């Protein structure tokens, strides 16, 4: 019973994330990809995404701290982040990245800094939710395993 409650909790969380626009359909696709043969696919992808994003964000922060910003590098990183976020379905992060790239094209430092903040904000918001989500998932997994045993 606890598993179903947890599952409901998880569904509610995911639904709220959809509702807030944190996630889009792509995430649904990911969920559909996860089945018996590939348990934990979503978790894997999400973890990968988080690692990747954090790396990129630190890089970006470093780049933006420099007096002379190398916009082409910044752009490359943002592009990467945009790619991975769209793959995961992190809608808000993706949109923020698009904005970021626009500023990047204009070589607008102020805008870039602001956009980076927005990206970070969105990302951290998403990450906290993802973390809860992953925790819930792992607990469900644990329960299920227990039941099987």
């Amino acid at each position, binding site marked *: 019973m606890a598993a179903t409650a947890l599952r409901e909790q998880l569904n509610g969380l995911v639904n709220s994330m959809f509702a807030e626009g944190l996630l889009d359909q792509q995430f649904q*696709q*990911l969920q559909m990809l996860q089945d018996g043969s590939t348990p934990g696919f979503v978790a894997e*992808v999400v973890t990968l995404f988080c690692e*990747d994003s954090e790396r990129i964000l630190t890089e970006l922060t470093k780049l933006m701290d420099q007096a002379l910003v190398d916009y082409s590098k910044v752009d*490359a990183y943002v592009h990467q982040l945009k*790619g991975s976020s769209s793959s995961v379905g992190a809608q808000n992060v993706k949109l923020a990245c698009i904005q970021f790239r626009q500023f990047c094209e204009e070589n*607008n430092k102020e805008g870039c800094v602001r956009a980076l903040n927005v990206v970070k*904000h969105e990302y951290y918001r998403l990450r906290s939710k993802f973390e809860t989500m992953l925790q819930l998932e792992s607990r469900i997994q644990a329960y299920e395993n227990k039941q099987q045993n």
Partner: protein
Amino acid sequence: MAEMVAGDRRWWLYRKAMVVLWVSASVGIWVGLHWYIRRVSMRKAEESLVSMCEERARMLQDQFAVSVNHVHALAILVSTFHYQKHPPALDQETFADYTARTAFERPLLSGVAYAQRVVHSERELFESQQGWMIKTMKREPSPVQDEYAPVIYSQETISYIEALDMMSGEEDRENILRARATGKAVLTSPFRLLGSNHLGVVLTFPVYRSGLPADAMVEERVEATAGYLGGAFDVESLVENLLRQLAGNQDIMVNVYDVTNASEPLVMYGSQFPDGYMSFSHVSMLDFGDPFRRHQMECRYSNKPPIPLSAITTPSGVFVICMLAGYILYAAWNRYDNVKEDCRKMEELKKQAEAADVAKSQFLATVSHEIRTPMNGVLGMLDMLLDTNLNLTQKDYAQTAQVCGKALISLINEVLDRAKIEAGKLEIESVPFDLRSILDDVISLFSAKSREKGIELAVYVSDRVPEILMGDPGRFRQIITNLVGNSVKFTERGHIFVQVHLAEHSNTITEAKVETGLNGHSGEAKIISTGTAFDTLSGLEAADCRNSWENFKMVLSHEQTLPTSSGMPNDNYADKVTLMVTVEDTGIGIPFHAQNRVFTPFMQADSSTSRNYGGTGIGLSISKCLVELMGGQINFVSRPHVGSTFTFTAVLQRCDKSAGSDAKRALSEVLPTCFGGTRAILVDRRPVRGAVTRYHLQRLGISVECVSTINEVPNAIQGQNGCLRSGTHSKQPCILLIEHDSWDTKADVCLCNQLIQWKENGRIIEIPKVVLLVTSESDKTKAGSDVDIVIMKPLRASTVAACFQQVLGIGKQQTRDRPKGSASLSGLLDGKNILVVDDNKVNLRVAAGVLKKYGANVECAESGKDALSLLQLPHKFDACFMDVQMPEMDGFEATRQIRLMESKATEKNRIGPAPEEGSLKTAWHLPILAMTADVIQATYEECLKCGMDGYVSKPFEEAQLYQAVAEFLVSDS
């Protein structure tokens, strides 16, 4: 600048020189003309002088000759009567008497006298006969001489010379000698006459004794000479008389000279020192009958002939004309210069103005853009702020700020659009899109507002409009959103109705309608205006009566009669489709005085409009521009307090049939197809609204029967059931749709009871589901327990579908069936070896996950180089998905290298004898698909250029993935 000044200066000098030249030329003309005229007048004066002179000379000569003849006659008289008569018949008395009486014949001679020749031997005898002594001129007794010529007879006027010896005067003697030698009249040189002291000459004529032959010798003549007749010519008075008789004598000075001695001419008439106008004179020769003496007459003007007036006036006139002409030329030239200069200035100003216009647009664009950028920041921050913990007031403030910011952003976007259009930077793209789903989107956008106001908002797209069109969906949506937004803003009751038809179709219908209107019932307009309820969507009157039910019905029926025409003929001949979109509302309308500036930017009907309704009024002008860019026109019909109808046309392109069907899957919202064969009965008193509902249901594949009142429902159901019973079909779900205004609780209770009864009787298998259609929230409460579901208008095919799925309970399993595409994808990809190349781990993992799900064996590579090493020939991969943007070696470059490798291998295969592996392909070609996030034409072209076979969007979309993969991978099954 300096150059210009120098140029100006030169020009000024040049002009001055021209003026001086012109004036001097004119003066020259004046002088020349004057001189010429004077010359002409001089010549004329000279000619007249010559003729006058000649005339005078002839007259003088003639008169003189007449006098001489008279003297001759006298001589003959003397010879006849004095010498041939014995005794002589003549004496002094007779002679004096005769000469006095004939003096009138000799006006020029002061008097005549006869002197007899007396030889010295005869002197004594003669003196005694006469009784006087011969005296000399000095009145002394004559000295002894060879011969004498004493005057014996004399006219009384000169009687004082009687007895004077003429031979004693030098002149007279000479005269006498010459006269008797020649036998002709001879003249003396001029001298002062004794009596009058006038200048005169003495004429002497010889008198011979008779019998002298005409050709007598000089000696004979001398011998025969009897005496001499003489007379004094008063030349001065002669000439004076003569001149007095002639006209113009005052003007002319006449001198008569004796020029026998050419070196010293003797004056016979006129002053010794000639005066008067000396510069020209004329000399005429005079012949007075004396061959020895020569005379001449010299004439000249007494005064210088006056300069004729014309010699002044004519050149002056010409001069004035020249000056005027010069001035005119100068003025014209000046004017030409001025105009040219003005033109140049205008040209410059025009350029400036144009530049300013461009600059303005650019400025506007830049500024708008610059405002947008920080505004986005503001909005983003507000978003973030709203996510934090705020109390209610703070939240309210933040939300208000956000709403305002959004409004500002949309305004700026509009201004930017406008500026872009003006700067000519806006381009209309041409991509395939689904018109119906765009309209659905627009309608949903306004659904909240329309529900709030209780307005009927509906869309109808003609069946003949192709599903997929090529055009600019964004701009199309913008126009419609704008028009519908306006309508929603200004409409408080009634309806807003968006219709899309093919323009040519719609036109033919309206024309036909006008004709029938003329022939059939001419009072059509009257009917419309007097009728209390109108055949429109909501029953309210619309501004453009063309959209009333009568017309709409005709359009519909026309469509039905020509069902094939939507497909075949049009597709064949034209790839352009002209759509006619009508947005009709029953709002406040546009006042007549404002109607002509509706499309002017920032113009609203009046200032109160913007106060009451907000907005800037820029939207319509942008819409106009956009419509014009799409090759269409926009116009409207509006009646205050009745409503407005905006109509625009747009030229779009038909999509390729093949491409269209593919694109359709990607572009249009997928409508479930599970309702095929479902039947519905619609209760609606308003045919137009019914048609709209039918249109939406038909898109879902539901066949609709429309009845006008709820009482007709049972019949309709029975009719259907009859059909059903005769056919062996299994039970078909049936839906009963009822418009809210046809719904009233009494009737439906009746209906429900009847339906239940029927079911019990077995007349119908299943009670139809009852669906109530409402336009506003308040109507929802009407729904009683008999209603299965309430659908809020505006209708949208997808929402209707969702509701029906819920009601009928058929949706679920149908959607479960949906992964048909994925099934076929699995078929394609199952067991295939696929290489996925992407530097982004997340993307890589996701892509791999998707492909694995369809049964493919996936290998991953994180860079182009890795991929190349994995793809060394021979390899086992059936396909490769390649990210385009990668560091070090991007997808294009990697593909190029792979293709190079392949072509080398192929070349080798061809040369080397390697037929042992028959199964091996002779030409290597690995399908490479690009993975890209921005699916635009340029990227696609680049993909093809570097040897890729296609592209898939990232993240994968099933349909598109299938489409891309299906071309290259052959299903194993």
